[in-house]
């Protein structure tokens, strides 16, 4: 079993969670952004290059279910994946709450980036008074779910915790 065999099922699982499971579990009408979380977790486990690649793939899949221009999520998520990857290679000997905080901050930042880039390509409706709630709840969901997602990706990408930049027990 190589990562090439293990990663696609994880992607499929993420799509199902993103489109069918978490939209049912809403807080203040806001659901978790699983595809963005998948990107962040990949970057935490695998670094900037894999983070960017996963961000692109996850973003394109997310775009399939959106009415915003195709490629907007891909553009946003590959940038988020790269930045988180670069950030994690600089933080050594981290404690457990660093990835949790990273996931929350990266999710909020990624969502702002999505809205910002969206506004640039004419999707002005993305900017609304609902935005603070969206940022807060998606960041919270990511913080809660990141530990599980990191474990899943460590299995999928066959990275053992000793070689990863982080100590996440």
């Amino acid at each position, binding site marked *: 079993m190589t990562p090439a065999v293990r990663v696609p099922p994880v992607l*499929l699982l993420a*799509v*199902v969670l*993103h*489109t*069918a*499971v978490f*939209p*049912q*579990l*809403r807080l203040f*009408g*806001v*659901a978790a*952004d699983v595809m963005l979380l998948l990107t962040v977790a990949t970057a935490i486990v695998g*670094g*900037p*290059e894999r983070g*960017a*690649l996963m*961000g*692109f793939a996850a*973003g*394109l*899949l997310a*775009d*399939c*279910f*959106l*009415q*915003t*221009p*195709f*490629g*907007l999520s*891909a*553009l946003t998520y*590959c*940038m988020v994946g*790269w930045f988180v*990857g*670069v950030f994690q*290679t600089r933080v050594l000997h981290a404690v457990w709450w660093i990835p949790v905080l990273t996931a929350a901050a990266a999710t909020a930042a990624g*969502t702002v980036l*999505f*809205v910002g880039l*969206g506004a640039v*390509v004419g*999707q002005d*409706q*993305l900017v*609304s*008074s*609902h935005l603070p709630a*969206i940022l807060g709840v*998606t960041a919270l969901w990511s913080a809660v779910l990141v530990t599980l997602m990191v474990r899943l990706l460590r299995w999928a990408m066959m990275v053992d915790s000793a070689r990863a930049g982080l100590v996440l027990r």
Partner: protein
Amino acid sequence: MALSRRNGRSRVTLLFLILTSITVLTLDFRGEGAGVIDRVRHTATDAIAPVRDAADSVFSPVGSAFSGITGYDHLKDENAKLKSRIADLQGAQTQNEDAVRELRELLALDHLDWVGNAKQVAARVVSAPVSNFEQTIELDKGSHDGIKVDMPVVTGAGLVGRVVDVSGSRSTVRLITDPSASVGVRMARSSATGIATGDGAGRRLTVGFIDVNADVRVGDLAVTSGLSGGSDIYPASIPVGRVTRADRQPGELQQRVEVKPLADVAHLRFVKVLQVTP
């Protein structure tokens, strides 16, 4: 050294991915690659539909429990209110049936179409809005069942939205509460026309372009005007909502009007797609 070389390589990858995304984005935006991109989108939607259906049927009770935990008392109250309301409505319905028959006869005399005569496709709502930014729902019927883009979607209560995307077995509906949706509306009592735009989940619609001198009161019924409202066109005379606010501010050229949708667009299970394309 090794670290910076790896970072350098990842930077090239990132640049490549960004450029690819922008290319795809541009193609979709300019409508040039629309055929290919739509096909990819629709294939992905159709391919994953069975898996999502399964997950949906497993998790919708969990979702109901999740929202039920906080709202049980409210539900009991609501149930009692609804029962008395049904009795009222049954009375009103018998009166309306006669009015509908008369309207149909009159319109037929003038050879005018009435939206109530349109063929309907019943569909189940299989997905709540996937994104936090869009008010769209997905239906379990698609082009195989005769659904086309721009067809209006209703419930027994009133207008829900408009079909914006169709694949073989699925269709996507933009709800009237979506911030980018707009509906041309007419006040049933005074015939004042305006354009209702969405303001996000659970919020009322804001109606613009209503003349200051127009007679609009709280409680008035708003129906589709059949006039183009921004980008979206609906057939005339579909009930949309009731006016909850109508203010005149001194010095302004239009009234501030808000409309509450008649259809409970946040909790839809079944809808009807009217087979008319305006």
